[in-house]
């Protein structure tokens, strides 16, 4: 390792990455943070220092709180490399990234992966039509461009973000044509088991209750326990259809915002061949790490939602925890100040995790919206492979996601399986009647972002 080796390179400038960087600086480590966006904040605090006044007032104080993280980060003296697309992370602690059309490399002594979450794919009929977007995507439009729907909009699916966006739209004066949520009676019953723990994190719970009250106060038509969601339209979305209490409904709209939770963005940890386990509660892959987020005996750690969905506040604490662990490894391990700091961070982390089991049980996405029964539903959006085709592949002997590539290019388009991977795993598991763990996932290889030969050549 030469003089330009950086103590800690962090991938992702969201809450986990920013908090990790700031923490590591307090222990004297040299830190560089790589992020794809032009400014820090990740997706949750995106544009927190640049958004419009209207956007800020609508997004509320939880969003504004992100400015504390970005400010502390700026003051920490950590280096921020903005607009950097990381396309490779190696076990030898090199990080390759694209910046301004040129590929560059950093050598690290340790790495924290904090690549966050993405919205869970919502494979239903018509989800590929223009005019259908994620609710999270629509919220990014508020943060980045102060953009709100021009006409009354329909929100459908489940999860806290769906309600949060609905309430934010109401505050902005946007008309909600309907909120169609898929939380069933069984979900409430399952969630009740976790209510006592969630009550300990009562502030979070109260926020949720207030959101639901606001929808009621504004007389938004809410269809509770809806099923069989689909989008109708020829070249663009024209209506959202669903069944509610045994009756079919179609609501005309040119903009449908879908959401059924978020899942870890595991592209980098998968490309490192770290072991990943299927989570039956989060319904996604979770990288195997120790308590601090460390992958095996590497000096590579994972923090925040890319390690398993925990939310912004817990993500920041996980970032701090990983930074403390790294400082202990790179410096004298037994410093007592660090142990005390670690205990504080762990206490905060526990507090913010209390509501998670309740949320996971309550907003578990429906099987029918993860594994579409309709053969015609497009699963791989890039290569336009349908659910029916994947079931056919299984019939003729396809055992796992990697073989679907050979059968029909499934997962081989530009998104590299990000938008179909979970669906393909679950569809094959369902068809074979085995667990997703047995079926496995795509083999993810670098470059994990598209790189041209010209960019590689510099």
């Amino acid at each position, binding site marked *: 390792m030469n003089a330009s080796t950086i103590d800690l390179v962090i991938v992702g400038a969201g809450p986990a990455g920013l908090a990790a960087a700031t923490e590591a600086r307090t222990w004297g480590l040299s830190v560089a943070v790589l992020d794809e966006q032009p400014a820090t904040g990740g997706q949750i605090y995106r544009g927190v220092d640049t958004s419009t006044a209207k956007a800020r007032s609508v997004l509320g104080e939880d969003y504004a709180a992100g400015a504390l993280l970005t400010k502390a980060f700026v003051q920490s003296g950590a280096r921020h490399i903005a607009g950097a697309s990381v396309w490779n992370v190696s076990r030898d602690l090199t990080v390759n990234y694209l910046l301004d059309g040129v590929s560059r490399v950093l050598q690290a002594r340790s790495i924290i992966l904090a690549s966050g979450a993405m919205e869970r794919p919502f494979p239903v009929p018509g989800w590929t039509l223009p005019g259908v977007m994620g609710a*999270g995507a629509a919220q*990014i*439009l508020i943060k*980045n461009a102060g*953009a709100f729907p021009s006409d009354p909009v329909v929100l459908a699916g489940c999860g806290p973000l769906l309600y949060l966006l609905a309430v934010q739209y109401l505050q902005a004066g946007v008309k909600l044509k309907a909120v169609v949520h898929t939380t069933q009676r069984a979900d409430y019953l399952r969630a009740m088991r976790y209510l006592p723990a969630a009550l300990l994190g009562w502030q979070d719970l109260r926020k949720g209750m207030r959101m639901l009250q606001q929808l009621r106060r504004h007389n938004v038509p809410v269809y509770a326990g809806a099923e069989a969601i689909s989008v109708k339209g020829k070249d663009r979305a024209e209506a959202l259809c669903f069944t509610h209490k045994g009756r079919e409904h179609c609501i005309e709209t040119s903009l449908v915002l879908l959401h059924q939770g978020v899942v870890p963005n595991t592209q980098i940890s998968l490309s490192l061949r770290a072991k990943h386990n299927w989570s039956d509660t989060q319904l996604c892959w979770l990288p195997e790490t120790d308590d601090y987020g460390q992958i095996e005996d590497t000096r590579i750690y994972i923090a925040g939602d890319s390690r398993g969905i925990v939310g912004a506040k817990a993500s920041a604490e996980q970032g701090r925890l990983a930074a403390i662990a790294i400082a202990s490894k790179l410096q004298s391990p037994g410093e007592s100040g660090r142990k005390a700091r670690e205990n504080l961070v762990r206490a905060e982390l526990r507090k913010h995790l209390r509501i998670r089991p309740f949320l996971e049980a309550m907003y578990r996405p429906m099987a029918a919206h993860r594994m579409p029964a309709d053969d015609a539903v497009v699963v791989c*959006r890039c290569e336009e492979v349908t659910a029916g085709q994947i079931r056919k592949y299984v019939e003729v002997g396809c055992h796992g996601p990697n073989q679907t590539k050979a059968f029909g290019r499934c997962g081989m388009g530009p998104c590299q399986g990000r938008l179909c991977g979970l669906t393909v795993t679950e569809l094959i598991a369902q068809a074979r009647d085995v667990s997703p763990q047995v079926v496995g996932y795509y083999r993810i290889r670098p470059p994990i972002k598209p790189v041209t030969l010209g960019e590689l050549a510099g």
Partner: protein
Amino acid sequence: MPTETKGSASPLFSSDDAERSCSVTLQFEGETLTVPAGVTVAAALLLQGVAPFRTTPVTSAPRAPYCMMGVCFECLVEVDGKPSRQACLTTVRDGMLIKRQLGASALVIPEEGDENER
């Protein structure tokens, strides 16, 4: 394929941008558009009512941004002659030349001034 430049519908999103003093001018399919500075190409085109952004290589199906955060690759457009740019990860710049990506991305990058070649 739609023959009109932006698509026929009114914009799905709008922004009351009175407070934004800065704007930039770019070209989309040869048409000059004035858009807010600092936003992504994807946001700018959505605010202008552009739909679709591209058509798929397999069935020429129309597509538009889905995730807005760089994971779905549905917003691929051609920027300044370079194919397959993620509109949601690209910030608008004065004088940018943007085109829809129709079908498979171009293997040959068109020469400058060769605007109609695809």
